[in-house]
């Protein structure tokens, strides 16, 4: 049994599923990272993902245009992000709680719309797998299947990691985000509009959450069903803490979580004698344990969840 497990760890297909599973988390967690680095905790990610998933799905279902699908998801995600920003920045509502409200709303609303406009589940022609010429059929260690045989959104998600890191660390916008999250009073005194920055990050975060949902409904699963995300949005928030508010840390967390998940699916086949309940439990346990012993170097924004008031 043990050697079954050892063997499966290095199975190419496990690596490939890891990458697929990680994709929605990467989108959502990167978005959440932006918001939190500017001081806003959005617990409503899952609700926004669900709305993004449905809008993307419905757009593709009706227009058969993937572009429109993505745009629809970005749009609704941005809209809900904007709402979240208004609630937590302008109305200064308790962020943990209002997030739960947004989640419940998204959960119900996406299902409601689905029932109204679609009804019975139908699959859509989502993003096809793009085999990168030359690379995708790379046999060595199955690298081809692992890295070069996914749909477009998967590549986009991974490309977004360095991009987000760059924006945060190397641009003026990023500088403002970090300042606003660390010491809003100072940023304000230097003529940076705390409100504007937070609106931007939270809205952007919403758009990415919407995209995360779409990556499920029109790229990875190509269907929609009630509560399609099955709580992935909450994991995404947790992964931001895991990643220490750093894009690469978030990537690490998403990959670890997804790897263990892919592994447990494989082990369920290779070593069926292990109770599947424990297999399914594994990713969650491993994530906690990993964080227990992870370095405590964190970029925790001092002003996280604290509304800004001048003077």
């Amino acid at each position, binding site marked *: 049994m043990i050697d079954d497990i050892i063997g499966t760890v290095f199975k190419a*297909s496990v690596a490939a599923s890891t990458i697929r*599973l990680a994709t929605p988390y990467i989108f959502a967690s990167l978005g959440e990272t932006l918001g939190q680095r500017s001081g806003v905790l959005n617990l409503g990610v899952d609700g926004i993902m669900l709305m993004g998933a449905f809008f993307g799905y419905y757009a593709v279902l009706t227009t058969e245009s993937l572009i429109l699908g993505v745009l629809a998801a970005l749009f609704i995600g941005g809209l809900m992000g904007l709402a979240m920003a208004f609630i937590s920045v302008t109305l200064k509502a308790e962020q943990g709680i209002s997030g739960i409200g947004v989640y419940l709303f998204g959960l119900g609303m996406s299902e409601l719309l689905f029932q109204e406009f679609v009804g019975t*589940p139908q*699959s859509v022609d989502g993003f096809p797998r793009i085999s990168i010429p030359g690379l995708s059929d790379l046999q060595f260690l199955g690298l081809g299947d692992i890295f070069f045989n996914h749909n477009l959104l998967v590549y986009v998600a991974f490309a977004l990691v360095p991009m987000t890191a760059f924006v945060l660390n190397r641009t003026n916008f990023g500088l403002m985000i970090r300042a606003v999250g660390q010491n809003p009073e100072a940023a304000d005194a230097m003529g940076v509009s705390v409100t504007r920055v937070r609106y931007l990050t939270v809205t952007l975060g919403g758009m990415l959450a919407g995209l995360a949902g779409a990556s499920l409904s029109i790229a990875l699963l190509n269907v929609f069903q*009630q509560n399609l995300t*099955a709580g992935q949005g909450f994991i995404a928030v947790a992964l931001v803490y895991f990643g220490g508010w750093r894009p690469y840390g978030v990537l690490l967390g998403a990959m670890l979580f997804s790897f263990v998940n*892919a592994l447990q699916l494989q082990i369920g086949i290779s070593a069926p004698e292990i109770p599947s309940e424990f297999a399914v439990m594994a990713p969650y346990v491993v994530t906690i344990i990993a964080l227990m012993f992870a370095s405590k170097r964190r970029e925790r924004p001092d002003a996280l969840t604290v509304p800004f008031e001048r003077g």
Partner: protein
Amino acid sequence: AQDGPFRVAAVAPSATNDLAFSQSMFDALTKIQEELGEDNFEFVFQDGTFIVDDAAVALRDWASSGDFDLVIAHGSQFGSILEELAPEFPEVSFAWGTDQNTFGLDNVFAYTAAAEQGGYINGAIAAGMTETGVIGVVGPIEVGDAKLYVDGFVAGVAATNPDVTVNVTWIQSFSDVPLATEAAETLIANDADVLTGTAQMVVGPIAVATENDLPWFGTQSSQADLAGDDGVLFQIYRWDVVLKDMIEQIQNGTLGGESFVISLENGGIEMEIDPDRFGDDADALAAFEEQVNALVDGIVSGEIVIFPDEAAEPAATEEVEG
């Protein structure tokens, strides 16, 4: 509520169009209404009560209203509610499934499906279709008719071709589509070239099957539309068969105490061949129907014993007084 139309109220955990468990009951009630006519048969249906408490509220509400001749709790997780509720409303007739425990109450009907039968047939045919010799199954939690179906499927495969491996992944959820989907992907990565599964999260695996052009076998409801031309065979629950029996009994003043099983024998289980599968190749279709019917007859006649080594099995086909 003797005179006037026969009135039924039912709760079901997921959506009426989930292509699975809940839909099977909704379709049955709709069918009965079509047969008996709107003015002889009415029903209210509350779906999406995956929260047990919601179902409890609805059931008690209906029971206490006294407006209904039959109150149905469609979902084995509702058993404990009924167990408490029924004794308080002896004048109301209740039915629940899938289970066969009437709690020894004479106003409770229980119903279940011999899911292993369709499972066996699907398995037998799947075994003949696989080239890699590996078949993949995505299951929710190893319980109820899901377990029966999978056990039957495995038996069907074994009986047809012992060399074929059946990999079963229980994802521990009835609704986690992303996980079910990745489970299907993993099964394929482990050489499965035929797929089946049960519960409402199979919409994910079905999409995987169609994407990879692998044959898909279904259960509970017809998934023909979703499966495109990769759908093969679907075990379909026809609860209307047992419901009609219950209605008859109730009208004769018997409010419960009996436990029903839908099966191939009583026509409560039907096998539907995916129409798109053979396109207009009438011969192939005919041959395939031949094959299926042979299996059906075998089971009905008792020539085929699904669980040979377990004489008692499947318990679900016996009648037990709780």
